[in-house]
């Protein structure tokens, strides 16, 4: 609006580096990044944080309070609550990251195609999106997982076998959001002059889509990544809570909450509170980071 609000060109920094500079200064960002670094470290190198094997449970110690070496005491099965909480981070985080990557790739690719070509390509994909979005996400996930999570998938084994069904389900219902977002920003970017310029130079569709449109259409999605990781961690916990996620003896925060929920008013609030705090703090950190990135990338929303 006002003349001055357009900063003078020569001093302007790039969108990303500007955002980065902006982010560096915020205390919430610093705190959440530190939290997330710790959480990621926990998720990928849990053994750094506890020497106790989370699978080593002694039923005789059920719900026992903290003792030396077991700072948070024991859960219902006599497993060390602290090491359970530490090892519970991995599957949730890995799942969230995998789902985000898949939805970004699939949703992004389809979104670019639909937004770029418009017409029937768009019509078809938009109908497909309609189909997915008209089945409530949680209901759909429950439906799929309840029916198929026990089905042995070929070619996948080990740790991933546990999370793959949930990953696929969440991705199946998650890509539509990314697709819609990307599609909208591609449609916006498509009519920009720099796209016309590339086209008038004779650039092929692929080049225009992936070199010109996609990088510019990513901004709104990028700020959503932390938010959706947070959301996926919640979603995974919800599924675990409903008994549809990862199976014991593997552990996730959702399973811990599910097991602990009943004890909250039953004399052992610790069993619910501990995993809840881990979960909430992690999601909170993602949410705060996502908010900050969005603010930094789109200052007018501040």
């Amino acid at each position: 609006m006002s003349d001055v609000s357009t900063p003078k060109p020569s001093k302007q920094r790039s969108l990303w580096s500007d955002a980065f500079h902006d982010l560096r200064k915020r205390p919430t960002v610093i705190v959440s990044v530190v939290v997330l670094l710790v959480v990621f470290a926990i998720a990928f190198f849990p053994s750094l944080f506890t020497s106790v094997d989370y699978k080593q449970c002694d039923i005789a110690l059920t719900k026992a309070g903290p003792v030396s070496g077991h700072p948070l005491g024991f859960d219902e099965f006599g497993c060390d609550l602290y090491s359970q909480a530490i090892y519970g981070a991995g599957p949730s985080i890995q799942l969230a990251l995998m789902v985000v990557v898949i939805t970004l790739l699939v949703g992004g690719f389809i979104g670019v195609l639909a937004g770029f070509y418009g017409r029937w390509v768009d019509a078809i994909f938009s109908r497909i999106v309609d189909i997915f979005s008209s089945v409530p996400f949680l209901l759909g996930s429950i439906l799929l997982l309840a029916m198929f999570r026990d089905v042995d998938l070929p070619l996948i084994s080990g740790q991933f076998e546990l999370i793959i069904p949930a990953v696929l389900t969440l991705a199946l219902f998650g890509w539509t959001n990314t697709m819609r977002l990307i599609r909208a920003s591609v449609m916006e970017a498509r009519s920009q002059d720099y796209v016309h310029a590339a086209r008038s130079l004779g650039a092929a569709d692929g080049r225009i889509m992936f070199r010109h449109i996609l990088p510019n259409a990513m901004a709104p999605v990028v700020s959503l990544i932390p938010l959706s990781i947070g959301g996926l961690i919640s979603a995974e916990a919800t599924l675990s809570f409903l008994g549809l996620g990862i199976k014991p003896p593997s552990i996730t925060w959702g399973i811990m909450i599910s097991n602990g929920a009943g004890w909250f008013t039953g004399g052992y609030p610790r069993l619910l509170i501990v995993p809840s705090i881990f979960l909430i703090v992690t999601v909170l950190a993602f949410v705060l980071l996502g908010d900050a990135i969005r603010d930094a990338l789109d200052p007018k929303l501040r």
Partner: protein
Amino acid sequence: MRTKRVMSAIAVAAIAGLVVSACGSGGDDAGSGSQELNLGLGEPKNLVPPNVGESEGGEVTRLVYSGLYTYNNDGSLKPVIAEGQPTSTDNKVWTIKLKSGWTFQNGEAIDANTFKKAWDYTVYGPNANSGSYFFNKITGFADTQSGADPDGDGPQKGAEPKAKELSGVKVVDPTTIQITLDTPWVVFPALLGYTAFYPTADACRAQIEACNEAPIGNGPFKFVGKWEHKTSIKLEKWSDYKGEQPSYQKLNFTIFTGSNNSQWAPFEAGSLDIAAPTPDKYESAKQKYGDRMIEADSPSTWSLGFPSYDNIYKDPKVRQAFSLAVDRQGIIDAIFTGRGKPLATFIPTMIPGYTEGTCATYCKTDPAAAKALLDSSTWPKGKKVELWINSGGTGEKILKAIGDQLAKNLGVEYEMKNIEWNDFLQKKQDHKLTGPFFTGWQPDYADSENYMGPLYYSGAKDGSDNDFGYYNADFQKLMDEGNAAPTIAEAHAKYTAAEKILTETLPVAPLYTGRTSTVIGDKIDFKSVDRNPILGGIDFVKIKLK
């Protein structure tokens, strides 16, 4: 031909339900002083006696219908419509005398013919009644069943049943029924208290579906309105009832279908009069309501089943080692806050035929012995144990606890295989479970035979017709002898000998019997509460409101 019987527990509800609430939940109405008893209930599957197969339906059916007999607290038969105990000279032909003057709530009279018609209806193959197998030892049962379907599920149908009536049931006169069995069986009367033998009115069978929604009973209570599915069932006192009348007017069941057992919270909120605390609420409940809590062992048993058909688990040493590795009391303490009893037998205490300590050798915790046994067995080192369970419910927790202990005491890794109930049943039946599985048994009738014959007896020598792939010739022989014994006492002696064989060979590792703790709301006269250990529930008819 499979000889296995009942397990009335159905899916999720059963595993959670038995342990947690068994049959009884109630509470008192909000102090309005009204003559109402408010109870919670899971959604029943069916309310027509021939087709009632699970505890929820049984609970309602027992209130709305009355049969020939019910059970005393010691498991013996208590005549209701019948006059005295069934009599037989050869344990093959049984005679039952009836009281006269009983009617259905629609006025239809009840006599020997009523029972015959009801039973004929029950067993007739095309009617697909789940209670029909109770009759399978009665002469002529096979003729009432449809022939095999020539093309499986294809369009062709199996042959029509040869007979519409059960030839083994005879109406001698309006107050006398005579039942003939294929072979002598001294335990047979124990079946007669079961809901499958309850009578149904002609009007009910004529419109069986309507009767399911609004039963025409003959019991102490009658339906008010219809069965409001998944919402409520409302009963009121039937004042023309010939038996023991309730002292209050109305009994309301609120039906709970939630994903967790949510009856405790409403009990605390005062909308239910009787409820069982969920395990996690048990300790606080005990503190708060200790003097109004009824704790009792339930007749259902829970075990870790072994796939004896599997090469790895064929070796009894493996099974023995696993059994010795499990700390039964620990599990009970942790998961049921102590409400349960470790099983050191195959038969629970309150069941006729129980003998103490039959499984003292292997039904205990002895990690050192377990490890030694496993090491000396054919167990392949490094093998991961797959533990199978149907998903949902408390069973998953128990199995995890078992897994934890196998890991701790035997040093084996384990993996949970939680699968859908239908898949689990199918795989179990098809011998496709590749590791130990959680299995429970709720008796159909109060006799030790019921805990063994239906489960481990095998017609085929490889055990392929029971879930465990278990076959033991000595066991088979002893069971046969027990069935043919002339007196109950002799039969039980044989059964106990058979049980001893099971405790050595362990087709399953007995784990525990459930223990219910039921809290009685303060609007109920606590002294009037009578809990029947055989039926596993509180006699609601006897309850008196303050």
